[in-house]
């Protein structure tokens, strides 16, 4: 951010960020990415399991000769100090909209409150698996909403300080209580209250018969370990979202905003579930290596990865069956189905019935595929078991978000959007070339390392090609316009179907399993 500002000053050309989009690109994107990384670092969230009941506070710290207050307070203190530095740097060096008055204190206090509460909520042991994510999303969302409402009604800085200042001591008290519980090994357990539900879940997934193959047994193992998290979390969040349909009434935009949020819930929650799925050892919170119980299964690395992929398919299907049933019921019971149907009829009248149906199916398929992809796409990093690589990839992704905003704004500011649009085929072609080079390199490594049989490699390549051509065909049929050349649609189809990262997963596991 400092570099951008210095570059602007050196060139002596002012940049005006009067539109919210410009401000978002250049300032809020990078700040949010950095803030997210700091949240993960100071809450020890990079190593732990978000969905687990136990506290995410590292157990190795409990034996240190420090009071519980210090164990909770010191990371909070360092975190808050760092966040304030981040805010002050942003306040001093960011390219703020011209003429706007930027407060000095309360935005920093807001970020510090969010950090303190994130720490408190991640260090708390929970009575049910997955409850941490639900509580964190709801509570942090509430703080955000209060701040946004205060801004909306032009609240004075003193009022904002009054609202936010008590948050940090309150969060500290909760964090201290959480660390004290975790330190004495006190993990509450409400699963007894859900005995019947647990019995049903257990009965559904318990094996009374013998497995027909080792691969099926491993897929069942993965399902029991990770498969139920995503549908479970989606099932908990859905009622909070769908109840808003009763508030929305006849407001078209609100109904569709709610439906959009519901459709985005499974892929969004899948990003959390993916952290556990892509781990090579399901039970090891502090270690990335493969657990000897798994490592000594007489299965190839490809079969171990295939079990995870199958589990991800079942998990995605279960989550989406829940979403579709819940949405249909909620629309019907809330009386908002008419709003949706009326919009649907208008849409099909404009684009034609068959096209409308295909487009709807394509969107649905895109959402489902995106959920599955979110679950499995980080396996090629997580399964390597290399902490530096895993943490480095997080930094890289956040770094991308930091740079993307200013870059996008630069394109808009310098009126290069047209040039970029013209260069789009070349950019896509370069990306396709990169993807294919990576895929070939991975294919050769898989073949040389005998990680996949010749038959599997050929079958995989054939299936991928069929999927690409099928998508290409649908895109040509849907977007039948002379403005979009067919080769561009082909490039889009190639980029859309996962290949390189998925193929790299057995390589990553082999690198970890046979160190």
């Amino acid at each position: 951010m400092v570099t951008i500002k210095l570059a602007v000053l050196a060139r002596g050309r002012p940049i005006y960020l009067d539109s919210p989009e410009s401000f978002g690109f250049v300032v809020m994107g990078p700040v949010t990415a950095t803030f997210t990384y700091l949240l993960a670092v100071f809450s020890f969230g990079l190593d732990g399991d978000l969905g687990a009941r136990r506290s995410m506070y590292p157990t190795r710290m409990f034996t240190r000769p420090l009071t519980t207050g210090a164990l909770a307070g010191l990371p909070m203190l360092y975190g808050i100090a760092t966040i304030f530095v981040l805010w002050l740097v942003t306040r001093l060096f960011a390219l703020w909209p011209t003429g706007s008055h930027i407060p000095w204190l309360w935005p920093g206090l807001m970020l510090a409150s969010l950090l303190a509460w994130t720490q408190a909520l991640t260090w708390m042991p929970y009575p049910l698996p997955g409850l941490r994510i639900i509580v964190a999303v709801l509570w942090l969302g509430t703080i955000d909403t209060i701040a946004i409402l205060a801004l909306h009604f032009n609240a004075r800085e003193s009022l904002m300080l009054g609202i936010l200042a008590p948050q940090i001591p309150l969060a500290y008290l909760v964090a201290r209580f959480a660390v004290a519980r975790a330190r004495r090994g006190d993990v509450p357990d409400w699963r007894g209250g859900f005995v019947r539900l647990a019995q049903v879940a257990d009965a559904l997934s318990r094996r009374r018969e013998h497995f027909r193959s080792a691969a099926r047994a491993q897929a069942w193992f993965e399902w029991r370990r990770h498969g139920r998290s995503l549908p479970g979390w989606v099932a908990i969040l859905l009622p909070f979202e769908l109840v808003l349909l009763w508030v929305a009434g006849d407001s078209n935009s609100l109904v569709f905003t709610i439906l959009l949020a519901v459709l985005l819930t499974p892929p969004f929650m899948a990003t959390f579930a993916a952290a556990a799925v892509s781990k090579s050892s399901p039970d090891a919170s502090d270690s990335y290596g493969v657990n000897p119980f798994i490592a000594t299964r007489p299965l190839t690395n490809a079969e171990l990865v295939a079990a995870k992929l199958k589990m991800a398919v079942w998990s995605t299907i279960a989550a989406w069956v829940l979403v579709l049933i819940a949405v249909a019921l909620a629309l019907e019971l809330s009386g908002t189905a008419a709003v949706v149907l009326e919009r649907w009829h208008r849409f099909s009248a404009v684009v034609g019935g068959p096209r409308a149906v295909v487009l709807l199916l394509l969107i649905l398929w895109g959402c489902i595929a995106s959920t599955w992809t979110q679950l499995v796409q980080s396996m090629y990093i997580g399964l390597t078991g290399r902490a530096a690589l895993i943490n480095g990839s997080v930094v890289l992704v956040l770094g991308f978000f930091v740079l993307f905003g200013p870059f996008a704004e630069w394109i808009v500011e310098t009126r290069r959007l047209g040039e970029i649009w013209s260069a789009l085929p070349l950019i896509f072609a370069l990306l396709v070339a990169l993807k294919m080079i990576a895929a070939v390199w991975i294919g050769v490594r898989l073949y040389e390392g005998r990680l996949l049989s010749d038959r599997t490699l050929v079958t995989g390549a054939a299936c991928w090609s069929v999927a690409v051509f099928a998508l290409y065909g649908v895109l040509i049929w849907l977007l039948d316009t002379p403005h979009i050349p067919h080769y561009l649609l082909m490039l889009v189809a190639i980029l859309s179907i996962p290949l390189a990262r998925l193929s790299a997963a057995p390589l990553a596991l082999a690198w970890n399993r046979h160190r």
Partner: protein
Amino acid sequence: MTAEATRVGEPVIDVTELTRRFDSTTALDSVSLSMPRGAVYGLVGANGAGKTTLIKHILGLLRAESGSVRVFGLDPVADPVGVLSRIGYLSEENDLPGWMRVDELIRFSRAFYPAWDDAYAEELRQSFALEPAAKIKSLSKGQKARMGLLIALAYRPDLLVLDEPSSGLDPIVRRDILGAIIRTIAHEGRTVLFSSHLLEEVEQVADHVTMINKGRIVLSAPLEDIREAHRVDGRVLSLDEIFVAQVGMSAAAASES
């Protein structure tokens, strides 16, 4: 797959000039070991001597940086299925999935080994007093060790690898483990690699002892030969005394060089 599938005369484990370094530490230094079929090898050494590192190479969990490892004539890294389907392994760390029930773990493990013997598994379950409905995480440390032993033995593996199996266990469980080794030996052609620092246990079951110290093999010979070679005033030294003497000699040789 049975022990007969290994070619006659071919060693079950053949380690040649294996060296392994972790950063600046040499965990294994030019280790060579050849284990014939039907042998019971006791691998002894102090904590950190390199026993587990050697076993991990045999299981294919570590890749040979220098030298070679062959198990049943196969590279355990290149062919994990071919090797691991014939090995029964019990580790010192208890890494069984705590969320499974005893019967689920038995059914799950059964799927991986075509030679799984249901009757034998049931016999072991009953003799170890493992309740089918009990969750693994609710079992005591000794019961977990018995459970691990059950799933390592029930398919009558050609090679049984036990890495510090008795560590931290009470004498009754240790007796069960030793009994299992003896039963395994009773099946013709079965081979056992048994790592421990409890030398009196090794003395009870091993017919060949390999002592390892700071990543180097300091002594490897049949137990009887070792005993014969270590007599002081007509008294046969215990394995403990021999071990201390060998480690001392090894340290002296290292300081001289």
